[in-house]
């Protein structure tokens, strides 16, 4: 069972029953949470709890916004500080899993369109891309956590850094001859390797989320099993 997918489905279904204003408020709160601050399982449980609160408040003739008043930022900050925090394994698996997808799509697409399964490329290219993704993840971890709670222009700093690293990396390395020289590797091999990487990280990710759920008493089973 893909717990996150099921939880997201459940949350989407339940969020249709709350006031639009509260839905926007919950989005504002959860938008401030990401895998570099809080693990995905806890994020979805918090979302479920807020939706539940908003539903009950609607039935009592009040709203979540009335309840939280002007303290939304403080409320969000307290939830984040009191939660279990990010999972380094989740960050690692998500980075690897999502970096395999562009390889599969772009190079798989190239092979299918050209019908030339013998095509090859410099081995430095995939190595440089992985290097870039690794650096990007470390920067995300540092800067997203540091600037997540900022309200003014500082909150855009992680975006600026993302853009800059992307630009510098692709301008300097990919546009450079480094990514074109050296030994060659068959693109078909790269696609197969990345399909394999994707499958392994997909199952490892699901297993990890299951473990996170078990370590918090598997409360999600009360929600998912009976609603199917």
């Amino acid at each position, binding site marked *: 069972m893909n717990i996150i997918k099921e939880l997201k489905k459940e949350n989407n279904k*339940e969020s249709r*029953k709350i006031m639009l204003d509260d839905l926007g408020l919950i989005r504002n709160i959860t938008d401030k949470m990401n895998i570099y601050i809080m693990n995905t399982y806890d994020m979805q449980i*918090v979302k479920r*709890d807020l*939706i*539940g*609160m908003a*539903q*009950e408040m*609607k*039935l*009592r003739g009040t709203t*979540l916004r009335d*309840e*939280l*008043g002007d*303290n939304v930022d403080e*409320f969000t900050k*307290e*939830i984040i*500080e*009191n*939660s*279990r925090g990010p999972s380094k394994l989740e960050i690692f698996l998500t980075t690897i899993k999502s970096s395999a997808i562009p390889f599969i799509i772009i190079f798989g697409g190239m092979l299918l369109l050209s019908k030339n399964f013998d095509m090859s490329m410099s081995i430095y290219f995939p190595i440089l891309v992985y290097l870039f993704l690794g650096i990007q993840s470390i920067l995300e971890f540092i800067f997203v956590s540091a600037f997540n709670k900022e309200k003014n222009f500082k909150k855009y700093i992680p975006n600026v850094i993302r853009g800059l690293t992307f630009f510098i990396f692709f301008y300097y390395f990919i546009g450079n001859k480094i990514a074109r020289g050296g030994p060659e590797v068959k693109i078909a091999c790269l696609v197969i390797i990345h399909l394999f990487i994707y499958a392994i990280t997909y199952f490892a990710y699901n297993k990890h989320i299951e473990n996170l759920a078990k370590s*918090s*008493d598997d*409360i999600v089973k*009360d*929600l998912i099993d009976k609603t199917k």
Partner: protein
Amino acid sequence: MVDPSQMMRGTLEGCIIKIISKNETYGYDIVSKLKEYGFTDAKEGTIYPLLVRLERKNLITAKYKESPLGPKRKHYYLTSLGEDYLDEFLKIWRDVRNSVDRIMEEVR
């Protein structure tokens, strides 16, 4: 000037655990009990981050249960670690209360 909300906040955790120790309960019920006993500013928005914290520390655990009012409710239970915490809290609270009472009454 003494900020009553800050003073209350510090003791809220112990009070929430005490309420949960009596019976399994849910957010709105905890808030109602807190209000009944004088925490008039208590709101679900105030106690939810505390409940997240108590869950993280394994002092309480939760389960979603059917509710007569709308969606499934998150019910909280005390763990054995929570029971120990409550005993410790009560001991510390009594000591602090006695000390404060004595100072307020005796120091002129």
